[in-house]
């Protein structure tokens, strides 16, 4: 319990840091980007909306600590202002409409990569020097060396443009109404294949190597020898004895990768024009939409922190040593 509380405190501090970062960036950056934004968009807005955004972004004559307290209060209560590029939709609404797509894409890719990678790692460590162990790691490291977006571009060119097997952009076809019909679902699935595949390809190597290296250490433990001496089936030893104990670092990586789900799919989303938060973040940056930018960053951070906290709770269940301390 103390462990959980400590972690919770830590995540609250991290969240506070990201809010503060958001607060400070537009106020202390050279070149006054915020005024530029206002100069461009002023005539489309109502006076009170301009006033609210000025306060949010720090074009404001009040003392800085007063602004800060106000800002903290606004963020915690979810008042993030209105989006400028999608005027007059509130920032929270814009984000809510996109976060689902990112979770779908990133979640699918992460689960597939983690399961496949860990299984391969287990097999590689179990049969040291075998085919999987000697051929796959260099190959996967090589694939993992490619920039995400470049592999995505290659896949898009090969399977999307040249072969025409998969659609090349967006999350579903314009001609289909979103619904829970089979037609719509399969369309979404088809649009998901290429972006998810490229993420899996690049990240599976990391999972495999991590698992393999931990598992090699575990395989040398006495209880493995003991299990073999007892004459247990190799499959049982491999999964119930060795892999299970080698899982913990992978669980931690899983928590950290959840951050990647929300933030890191950005490049893939951009290449495939996939309507997730990453794609939106880039649009916001290009459109000088600072309120939306800040809102997106805060949402992404909050998601990452929440995911890590959940993994911590899971960790307490998995690792008795944490409970003892």
């Amino acid at each position, binding site marked *: 319990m103390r462990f959980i509380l400590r972690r919770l405190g830590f995540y609250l501090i991290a969240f506070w840091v990201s809010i503060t970062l958001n607060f400070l960036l537009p106020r202390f950056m050279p070149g006054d980007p915020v005024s530029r934004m206002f100069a461009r968009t002023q005539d489309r807005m109502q006076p009170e909306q301009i006033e609210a955004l000025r306060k949010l972004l720090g074009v404001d004559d009040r003392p800085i600590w007063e602004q800060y307290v106000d800002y903290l209060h606004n963020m915690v209560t979810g008042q993030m202002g209105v989006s400028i590029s999608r005027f007059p939709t509130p920032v929270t609404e814009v984000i809510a409409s996109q976060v689902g797509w990112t979770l779908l894409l990133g979640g699918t890719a992460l689960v597939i990569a983690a399961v496949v990678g860990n299984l391969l790692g287990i097999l590689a460590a179990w049969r040291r020097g075998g085919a999987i162990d000697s051929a796959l790691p260099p190959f996967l490291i090589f694939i993992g060396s490619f920039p995400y977006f470049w592999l995505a571009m290659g896949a898009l060119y090969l399977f999307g443009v040249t072969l025409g097997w998969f659609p090349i952009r967006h999350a579903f076809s314009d001609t289909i109404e979103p619904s829970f019909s089979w037609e719509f679902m399969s369309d979404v699935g088809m649009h998901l294949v290429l972006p998810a595949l490229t993420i899996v390809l690049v990240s599976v190597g990391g999972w495999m190597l991590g698992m393999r290296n931990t598992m090699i250490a575990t395989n040398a433990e006495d209880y493995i020898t003991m299990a073999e001496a007892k004459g247990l089936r190799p499959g049982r030893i491999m999964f119930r004895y060795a892999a299970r104990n080698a899982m913990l670092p992978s669980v931690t990586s899983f928590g950290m990768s959840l951050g990647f789900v929300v933030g890191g799919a950005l490049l893939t989303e951009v290449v495939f024009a996939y309507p997730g938060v990453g794609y939106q973040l880039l649009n916001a940056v290009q459109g000088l939409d600072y309120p939306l930018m800040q809102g997106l960053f805060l949402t992404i951070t909050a998601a*990452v922190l929440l995911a890590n906290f959940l993994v911590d709770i899971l960790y307490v269940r998995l690792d008795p040593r944490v409970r003892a301390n």
Partner: protein
Amino acid sequence: MTTSIATTASTVSGETFAGGAGTPPGTPDGGAGLPPGASVRRPNRSLLHGLLTNKKAMTGAAMLFFFIALALLAPVLYPDNPSKITGMASQEPDAEFWLGTTAKGQDVLALTIHGARSSLLVGLTVGFASTFIGILVGLAAAYFGKFIDEALSLTTNVFLLLPGLPLLVILAAFLPPGLGTVILVLVVTGWAGSARVLRSQALSIRSKDFVAAAVVTGERPLRIMFREILPNMASIVMGTLLACIIYGIGAQAGLEFLGLGDVSTVSWGNNLYWAGNEGALLTGSWWVFIPSGLCIALVAFSLSLINYAVDEVTNPRLRKIRKSKPASKPAGKPAKPGKRASA
């Protein structure tokens, strides 16, 4: 990017890492002048020797040197401005333009060779800078402990948790564009991973007897940190440095691909940005976007090979299994025949 660092971290933390620093100085009683000096060299030399005889490391180093040479020789090979329009638009590779031309009519080969300069410069700078910060923070946290450790670890962990790529994008959006901004932003988002790995390693060395001896002898903290502790974690520092360079090159390319770098310079990331902008993919000009991406991949791969080799050299368990097996690893072998028999 994040994965590569996380992988290193998990590899590192999973091991007790007695290998490289296994026989540290051994003379805690001697006056701290000479023995540490002697101990300093031994692990380093064995690491270097191990790397020189390792096939993976040598392949990686050869590839890396090839690209560094290419970057240095770029002004000799192509004295002209690489962005100059020299041919027809979107020409396929032929005898005149080995890698074809872009939609604007620029020579892709010239762009690729010149691109190596900025990409390697930024990658190496970011790698060394973030590793250096990581060393400072990690060593200080491990050596001083208590409150300083708490504060530094907290900062490190917070930075580690803040989502890197979005933070990168936000920072790049607010700061004025330029090469300096790119480097600064990448270091800000990249140092935390190395700090965490180095701290945990320094912590285990901090608890060794020879450090305690040095403290008792009254050596200055800075000297203990950099002359006693640091040399004994050479391999980890090396692994961290390589991971940071890989991160730097990849993240720079990503940032530039999004159009958030300095668009006026020629670099691999910017080549890809223009390739995407000019619709090279949709018109089928594969020769425009393949070279730069391949170069990034080959450089990152060469660094990964060296990193992998460092792991192998310092961690005996990961080495290739030889015919005469040491008694310390009885687990793997008996399992295999048993498995085959049952299968």
